[in-house]
C-alpha cells in the first residue's frame, strides 16, 4: 500500500499487483491484501479475492463484513482525515462494487441481514448530484444497500420509494438555498402520514448546516460523505439496540 501510493504511475501499480498470487495467501493475509486492494481501488483483484474466499467456504456475510466493509472503513477514515481524495475514494467504491456484485445474490439467497438500507435522492427543484452520488458510494462501502432515486424528487417520489423499499434511512440532498427548505416539506409529509418515526432521516448539501438539519426535523445533518456513512451506521445500530 505504501509502495503503491508513493510510486506514481498506474502501470507500476499493475506490475506490483501482478506479482501477488492471491490464491497463495492464507485467509488472514488474503483479507489483509483485500484491505490494501480496496484502498488502492483495484476492482479486478477484489473480485478475484472475493471469489477465492467464497470458494474456500467463507460465509458471504463474513466476506462482506471482514473483508469489504472493514477495508472501506479504513478508506473512510483516511478520506475524512484528508489523506485520500475524491477520485481515490471513487476507485475504492468501484472496487467494493466488484466484490458486491458477487456477494449480493448470495446474501439475498441466505437472507443475511445487511447493516441497513438507504433511499437517497436530491430534492425537488435541485439537479445537483455529485455529492449525493459520493454519499451513496460511501454508504455502499459501509455495507448499506443504497437505492438512489436521482435528482428533483418531490415528496410523493420520496414516499413512493420509502413504501417500495422500506429502508432504515432516508437521505436527502440539496445544493441550493432555494431548494433545501423542501426537505422540511418531505419530513412534514412523513409526519402527517404517521411515518416519521419509521425512518432515520439524514440531510446534507453545501448550503446546509447543523442548525438547519434540526430545524427541518432531520435526525442528523452530515457534513460530508465520510460523516454520512459514519452517522448512518451509528444511528442504525443505536436504533437496533433500542428496539
Amino acid at each position, binding site marked *: 500500500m505504501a509502495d503503491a501510493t508513493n510510486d506514481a504511475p498506474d502501470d507500476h501499480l499493475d506490475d506490483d499487483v501482478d506479482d501477488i498470487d492471491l490464491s497463495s495467501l492464507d485467509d488472514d493475509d488474503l483479507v489483509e491484501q483485500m484491505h490494501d486492494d480496496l484502498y488502492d481501488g483495484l476492482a479486478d483483484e477484489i473480485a478475484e479475492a472475493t471469489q477465492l474466499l467464497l470458494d474456500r467456504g467463507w460465509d458471504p456475510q463474513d466476506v462482506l463484513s471482514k473483508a469489504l466493509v472493514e477495508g472501506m472503513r479504513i478508506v473512510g477514515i483516511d478520506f475524512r482525515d484528508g489523506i485520500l481524495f475524491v477520485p481515490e475514494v471513487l476507485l475504492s467504491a468501484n472496487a467494493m462494487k466488484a466484490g458486491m456484485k458477487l456477494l449480493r445474490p448470495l446474501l439475498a439467497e441466505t437472507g443475511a441481514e445487511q447493516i441497513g438500507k438507504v433511499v437517497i435522492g436530491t430534492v425537488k427543484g435541485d439537479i445537483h448530484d455529485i455529492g449525493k452520488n459520493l454519499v451513496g458510494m460511501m454508504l455502499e462501502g459501509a455495507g448499506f444497500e443504497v437505492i438512489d432515486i436521482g435528482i428533483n424528487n418531490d415528496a410523493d417520489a420520496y414516499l413512493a420509494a420509502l413504501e417500495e423499499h422500506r429502508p432504515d434511512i432516508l437521505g436527502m440532498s440539496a445544493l441550493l*438555498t432555494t431548494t433545501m427548505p423542501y426537505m422540511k416539506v418531505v419530513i412534514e409529509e412523513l409526519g402527517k402520514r404517521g411515518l416519521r418515526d419509521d425512518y432515520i432521516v439524514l440531510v446534507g448539501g453545501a448550503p446546509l448546516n447543523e442548525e438547519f438539519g434540526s430545524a427541518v426535523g432531520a435526525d442528523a445533518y452530515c457534513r460530508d460523505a465520510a460523516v454520512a456513512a459514519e452517522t448512518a451506521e451509528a444511528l442504525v445500530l443505536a436504533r437496533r439496540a433500542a428496539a
Partner: protein
Amino acid sequence: MTETVISSPTREVVIGHDRAFTVIGERINPTGRKVLAAEMQAGDFSRVEADAVAQVEAGAHMLDVNAGIPLADEPAILAQTVKLVQSLVDVPLSIDSSIVAALEAGLAVYEGKALVNSVTGEEERLEQVLPLVAKHGAAVIAITNDETGISEDPDVRFEVARTIVNRAADHGIPAADVVVDPLVMPIGAMRGAGRQVFTLVRRLRDELGVNTTCGASNVSFGLPNRPGINAAFLAMAISNGLSSAITNPIEGEIRSAVMAADVLAGNDPDCAAWIASHRDPGGTQGAARGRRGGRRGRRGGSRDDG
C-alpha cells in the same frame, strides 16, 4: 467582439474577449463558511468588510455578493450586504442568490449596472429573473442547466445557453448582457469536466458571441492543493476564450495564473500589468519605483489601458 459593461457609480468594468480577464471575487459567500454565516445572520458584517477590501486590494475587478444563509431573511441580508460593500469599495458587484426576492432586494439598493447571478434554463427561472434583469437594466449570468439537470453533453449545454440568450432577447436584454456559465464540474469525479468547459467556452465565444464566466473553484473539489488545479484550469480556460471567473483573487497562485494567461493571450498590452505586479523588489527603491526613476515627464499620460 462582445463587451459586457458592468458598473458602480464611479467605475466601469468591461468583460470582453480581447481584454484583460475579469476576476470576480468569490469570498463574500456564507455557503460553507460557518462563522461568516453566523455573523451575517447576527448582523455582524466585519468579516464581509474585511473580505471586500482584501479582495479588491488583491486585484478583484468585481465582487460577488451572496447572503445564502439557511433560515435567514436572505433578501434583507443581501440588500444590507450590497449597500455595505458599495460603501467600502468602488468595484461593480455581482448580486448572487437563488432566491428571486433576494435578487430583487439586492438590485433595488444597488447603485450602477449590476451583474445578476443568476438565471438558468428552467422555465420558471427564466420567467422570474429575466424581467427583473430587464427592469433594472442589469446584466445576467446564465447557467447552462434546465429542468432535466446538468447535461454531461456539451452540445446540450450549448443549446440551453442559446435558449437563454434568445429568451433574454425577448425581454429586451441584449446578448452582450448575458454572460454564460458553462458549469464547472469537479474534475475529481468526472474526467471530462475540464474538456467540456474548454469546448463550451470556445463555442460560446465563436458561435454565440457571448462572454463567459464560471465558478472556477468547483473544478478542484475533493482534491489536494486546490489552488494549483484552479490556477491551471483558469489559464487553460482563458486560452479557450473564458472571459471572466468567480474565484479567489487572494490566492497568489490563481492571481499569477490569470495575469500570465492575459499576457500570453495578448490581452496585457506591453505586459504592463504583469511587469507592474512582478517587478523585482530587490532594488533599493523597491517595487514602486518602476523603470528609471527620472524622466517620468516623457512617459506621463501616455499609458491608459485601464
